[in-house]
């Protein structure tokens, strides 16, 4: 009886001790991770390679004053099934970080597609697609560097008219008014240029996957830049 009781006590003591060790180890591990992340953040924020590369955390919702500029952009959206070019021009607002541009997008080659024309009758034709759109884009920068470059996220919406042209068919098809949403990362790497990398839901494209990667370079004329 005594032996049994002693064994049970030993077991409980051992179990509690083991649990304590495990918990301490877990806390220390997490603490180590937190400490490492904090150190890395401090390193990035306090010890940049160049003095003008000093990063500052900014409020992504704050704006400064109205700074409208004319801008042009060139980009692409693509996936494993399709590839389109996208060019645009319009307003670039650098104070409140938004833009309103007129864009034209097109597939630069013909792609063979198959669609059902009637019961048991399919057409295989070569397709090109085009879209004209007004693009609204809002950017939220949360890191700004002393050399004026900024890193943040963007959200955009294309309001446009889409249609497909088909070799051998005079009439355009699949024409529709469309809303195309997108979002991603935005890097304004100088006072006159910005690079966006993100996702675009190009659902109106009838014979390709709608999930596309969007890469866009924007250039704008900035009168306030240093010479």
């Amino acid at each position: 009886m005594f032996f049994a009781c002693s064994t049970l006590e030993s077991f409980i003591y051992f179990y509690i001790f083991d649990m304590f060790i495990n918990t301490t180890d877990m806390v220390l591990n997490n603490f180590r991770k937190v400490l490492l992340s904090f150190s890395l953040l401090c390193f990035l924020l306090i010890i940049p390679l160049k003095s003008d590369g000093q990063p500052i955390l900014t409020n992504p919702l704050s704006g400064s004053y109205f700074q409208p500029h004319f801008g042009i952009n060139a980009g692409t959206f693509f996936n494993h099934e399709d590839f389109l070019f996208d060019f645009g021009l319009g307003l670039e607002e650098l104070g409140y970080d938004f833009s309103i541009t007129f864009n034209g997008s097109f597939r630069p080659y013909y792609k063979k597609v198959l669609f059902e024309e009637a019961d048991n009758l399919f057409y295989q034709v070569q397709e090109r697609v085009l879209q004209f759109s007004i693009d609204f884009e809002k950017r939220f920068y949360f890191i700004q560097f002393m050399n004026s470059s900024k890193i943040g996220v963007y959200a955009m919406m294309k309001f446009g008219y889409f249609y497909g042209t088909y070799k051998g068919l005079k009439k355009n098809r699949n024409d529709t008014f469309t809303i195309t949403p997108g979002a991603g990362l935005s890097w304004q790497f100088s006072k006159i240029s910005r690079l966006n990398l993100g996702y675009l839901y190009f659902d109106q494209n009838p014979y390709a996957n709608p999930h596309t990667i969007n890469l866009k370079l924007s250039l704008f004329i900035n009168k306030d830049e240093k010479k």
Partner: protein
Amino acid sequence: MKKHLKYTLIALSLIAINTSCGKSNDDICDPNQICYTSKPNELYIKLELSTNPGSGPIEVSLYKGFFDDGQLFDTFFTTESIEYYLMPTGERYTATAKYDQENDIIMVIDSDKLTSDSYQNCEETCFDWDEEMILDLKLAD
């Protein structure tokens, strides 16, 4: 930075001007160059076909103009993988091929304009053309 933008815009403008207007890259002045001064009246259309999955002959049609807005010129059945037509230039032609696949019919459509190019050689207009215009009526993989 402003200089960079200026140079970028200038370079883009030059590329646009160079590709959109002015003398064609084919314009030359070489008296020894063979020059065909008369425009060809007829050229070949080559129709490339696949094997019919339904194992029967393929119904091929040729239209002057577009398929949905043109004139049917000829229809025939074939088991060959290549067919030729000699047709007048300066017109668009559309060809179709009907394949049987199980219970379905797949109609492959292709179209192009049958033309010849021209260029200036020492103030003389010369004509150049491809051996044939290919219409791809093969089934996609």
